[in-house]
């Protein structure tokens, strides 16, 4: 017996280790040990990351957002018990897929607003009420939350939306009709508004 025999024997089967690791999220969720389930999905506006807690959907991130930073922020502000799980994110992913196939005009999935701070709470609550296929303006949202002069602050709050698409900040545009900005990039804003049939002129 030689100790190199021991070493050779323990190596290998790293692929099996990966398979096992991939089942952990589901095991943890079924035991109530998972605070945040994450998964990715493909969409016409790129790959999306979703993070779901027992309270609801807490985060939708576009593919350019740095995954490590997104997860680190969730770890800090919600809980570090984050694992990938397809099953625990199933409802949110399915609704988003239906939305992109134009088969869904409103989301039923609950949202977890813990990543929303300060004035953004009011702004995004007002934004959630803008119906599919309609648009509002920064000024109108500002008036709605009782801060008629705060259009800029409204813009910033919309830019910080942790749950884009589901909280439809893409439906807020400039008073002149200019689409102005979008945290996920103007092209995405256009794609979302086109999907909803809001941009007949384009």
């Amino acid at each position: 017996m030689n100790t190199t025999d021991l070493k050779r024997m323990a190596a290998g089967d790293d692929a099996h280790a990966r398979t096992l690791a991939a089942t952990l999220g589901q095991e943890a969720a079924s035991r109530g040990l998972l605070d945040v389930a994450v998964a990715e999905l493909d969409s016409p506006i790129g790959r999306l990351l979703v993070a779901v807690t027992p309270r609801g959907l807490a985060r939708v991130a576009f593919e350019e957002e740095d995954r490590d930073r997104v997860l680190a922020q969730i770890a800090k502000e919600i809980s570090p018990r984050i694992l990938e799980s397809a099953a625990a994110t199933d409802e949110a992913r399915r609704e988003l897929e239906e939305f992109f196939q134009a088969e869904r005009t409103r989301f039923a999935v609950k949202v977890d607003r813990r990543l929303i701070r300060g004035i953004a709470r009011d702004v995004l609550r007002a934004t959630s009420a803008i119906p599919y296929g309609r648009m509002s303006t920064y000024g109108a949202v500002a008036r709605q939350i009782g801060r008629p002069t705060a259009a800029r602050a409204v813009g910033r709050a919309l830019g910080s939306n942790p749950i884009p698409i589901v909280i439809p900040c893409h439906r807020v545009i400039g008073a002149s009709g200019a689409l102005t900005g979008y945290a996920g990039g103007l092209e995405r804003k256009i794609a979302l508004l086109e999907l909803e049939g809001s941009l007949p002129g384009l």
Partner: protein
Amino acid sequence: MRASEPIPPFQDLLDRHHTAVYRFCRAAVGPSEADDVFQETFLAALRAYPRLRDGQHLDRWLLRIASRKAIDHHRARGRRPIPSDGLPDRAVRQPESPDDALWSAIAALPPRQRVAVVHRHVLDRPYREIAELMDATEETVRANVYQGIKKLRELIA
């Protein structure tokens, strides 16, 4: 002294350390029990995670849990039989490879010797670190490894 580090997302821990933890489990409890001990280890870690205050040295923290789980698991299942020539099923099985014989011999070691041998000779950890992982003194761990290797040599003559 370094300041404490933020607690990383558990998925990072899993991504970074699942290979090392699985290798340890496989060597310490054998391939057929490794999956259970692997899962028990990570679920126990997840259970304890909210109470963790420092994100440093989480690999060692995980391996401490894995070491404990491997020892408990082994105890719970009782010692495996030591293979000897003339087992009734020997004839119908594939000819035993040297690795099979080695697995059986490792399985026959008392749990603490087994875990200590795996940390030292499979995963190449220094005695100081093994002592920490096994909540024991360095002398005890050296003795565990010495006795374990001695016994393995006897079993695989």
